[in-house]
């Protein structure tokens, strides 16, 4: 494959060349352990500290409020399990139906994991992916240990009103966690203004390496470690630091702060051009998610009567990388839980395509997708028995009644 048009930045991003350059010395001459007492290791410890400061600056947090983890998933697990252990008498969690599996599957399996019965409220979302604040407020009660709500949805880019939600939780004395893996680096975040207790982020979503995550724990928030071992991170997360990735993440956060205007200006304009172009040139195409309460880089469009995996493989032929919420791409048999939670009609749920951009995308690439995608949809529809046709459906049993319909 010669040319790659990468529009799958919510899945992962390219490591910025500047980030790679800062990482490389730690694979050769700077191999010391940051915990060592000698100055050879100590210099590495100093660079970890500087990285921590840069990351804290992007979040409006204090450096000592950050723990390095191995990924966003570890951060999510750490936060939620910590809250449950801090308040053993409280066994209720409030979350949403559209969370990433890192939170969703954890909450759904808590009883098995902990051996205690838990009550999990998964808040529904509106058809545009937004949330009803009254419903949220009413779901909180005396037993609620923690609220875990994502900042931005990975599939649609829809933003939740985290500030308001965190304030409501705080006024009720309930801990608040947000999975901000998709939000950090794409929209401004200032934790000195938003009273959340835990925030998860993941390096590889903002042009740092895979295998590095951060958990923000507000000063004063009760905390129980997830990984217990050495004294690293003041005993709050054992394990020798992933030094190269930490330093790389520091650089990535510095770049993200610098590129924030471009992300919300040029990248957003490219996204809008792409989205408007596709919706205009392809009939029966529907936007999934709120038009404005959204990340600047993400668009999610359903093309009725065609299936997502087939679209992706045709795009792949041109080197265009995208994702789909269709059942077939995941290996499960039902379309994504996000599409189902939003009530996307089944004529469209299987044909959803997500395109997520980054500062590395160009207008030529957007034009290329605008040229290639419409004929693919037309070709697949030509082949579809549902396109301008009748198909009575299933023999061999009852009509399909899966939860997607």
């Amino acid at each position, binding site marked *: 494959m010669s040319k790659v048009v990468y529009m799958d930045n919510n899945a992962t991003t390219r490591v910025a060349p500047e980030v790679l350059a800062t990482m490389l010395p730690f694979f050769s001459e700077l191999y010391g352990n940051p915990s060592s007492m000698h100055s050879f290791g100590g210099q590495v410890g100093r660079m970890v500290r500087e990285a921590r400061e840069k990351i804290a600056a992007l979040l409006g947090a204090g450096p000592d409020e950050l723990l390095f983890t191995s990924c966003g998933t570890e951060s999510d697990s750490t936060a939620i399990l910590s809250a449950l252990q801090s308040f053993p008498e409280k066994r209720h969690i409030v979350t949403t139906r559209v969370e990433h599996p890192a939170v969703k599957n954890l909450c759904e399996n808590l009883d098995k994991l902990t051996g205690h019965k838990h009550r999990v409220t998964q808040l529904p979302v509106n058809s545009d992916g937004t949330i009803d604040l009254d419903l949220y407020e009413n779901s909180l009660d005396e037993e609620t240990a923690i609220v875990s709500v994502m900042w931005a949805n990975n599939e649609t880019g829809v933003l939740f009103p985290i500030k308001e939600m965190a304030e409501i939780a705080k006024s009720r004395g309930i801990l608040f966690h947000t999975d901000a893996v998709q939000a950090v680096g794409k929209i401004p975040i200032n934790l000195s203004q938003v009273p959340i207790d835990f925030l998860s982020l993941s390096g590889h979503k903002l042009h740092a390496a895979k295998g590095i995550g951060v958990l923000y724990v507000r000063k004063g928030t009760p905390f129980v470690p997830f990984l217990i071992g050495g004294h690293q991170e003041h005993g709050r997360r054992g394990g020798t630091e992933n030094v190269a990735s930490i330093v790389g993440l520091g650089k990535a956060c510095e770049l993200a702060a610098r590129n924030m205007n471009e992300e919300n200006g040029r990248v957003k304009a490219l996204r809008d051009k792409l989205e408007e172009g596709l919706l205009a040139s392809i009939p029966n195409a529907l936007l999934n998610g709120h038009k404005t309460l959204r990340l600047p880089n993400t668009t999610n469009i359903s093309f009725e*009567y*065609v*299936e*997502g*995996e*087939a679209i992706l*493989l*045709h795009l792949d*032929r041109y080197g265009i990388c995208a994702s789909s919420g*269709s*059942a*077939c*791409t995941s*290996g*499960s*048999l*039902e*379309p994504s839980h996000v599409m189902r939670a939003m009530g996307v009609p*089944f*004529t469209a749920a*299987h044909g959803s395509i997500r395109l997520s951009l980054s500062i590395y995308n160009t207008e030529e690439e957007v034009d290329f997708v605008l040229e290639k995608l419409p004929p693919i949809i037309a070709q697949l529809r*030509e*082949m*579809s*028995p*549902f396109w301008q*046709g009748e*198909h*009575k*459906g*299933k*023999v*061999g*049993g*009852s*009509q*399909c*009644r*899966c*939860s*997607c*319909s």
Partner: protein
Amino acid sequence: MWEYTDKVRDHFMNPRNVGEIENADGVGEVGSLACGDALTLYFKLDENERIVDAKFKTFGCASAIASSSALTEMIKGMPLDEAEKVTNEDIAEYLGGLPKEKMHCSVMGREALEAAIAHYRGIPLPMAEGEVVCECFGVTDLEVKRAIVESNLRSVEEITNFTKAGGGCGKCHERLEELLREARQDVQQIIPDKRPTRLTNIQKIKLIEEVLEREVRPNLRKDGGDIELVDVDGDFVIVSLRGACGTCKKSQTTLKEYVEKKLREQVLDTLIVEEEK
């Protein structure tokens, strides 16, 4: 990303026989929009009940489209009573194999063919008569049982891969376990009866190949290995181990304890399996 064979990719990118046939002799519709895949199959017969033309329209993923395309290529020119015997395994084999999670796409092809033949003959579909087990995807016990026997399924997960049953809400998993036990018992009773006392060389080779293909190879492939029949000389079965098996230290144990045992159980209890030198 799914590992598709070149043949699947080819039939997906360049599907054969897309379209409809006006005044078709048989039309079969299976699947639904909600389920994520659906297929309408058309065929035209000549005066001798030979399929002279077949076309399809499919909504679904790459393997659904490829399975439909492959099916139409396979049945064109076939007498109807021969086409009736085409199974989903035949479709998958024609395509050089499908990922296991995608086997239901080949099953959909076979069901569409059955529906089209039933439509032509004006008879109800035998599989539809059964009791619906999986409400999410509308799968009957007859369909599940047939898949268990024909494709030698051993778990609920495999049933889901082949028929979709159990892939939605999951409420039917217990019932699927039951069907699995019932059907497997039937299978185990049948196998010894199928073993004749005297075999011609050709029968022997054919049986050995069948057992290798059906039971041994899928299991070895799970571990990245493979096996090929090289020769049969009297009771000596000469095989060649491929892939991970070729370098595995335990391959001799596998050969004797597993391959030989299977062949002795199902073909002839005097067989000796040896590796090609």
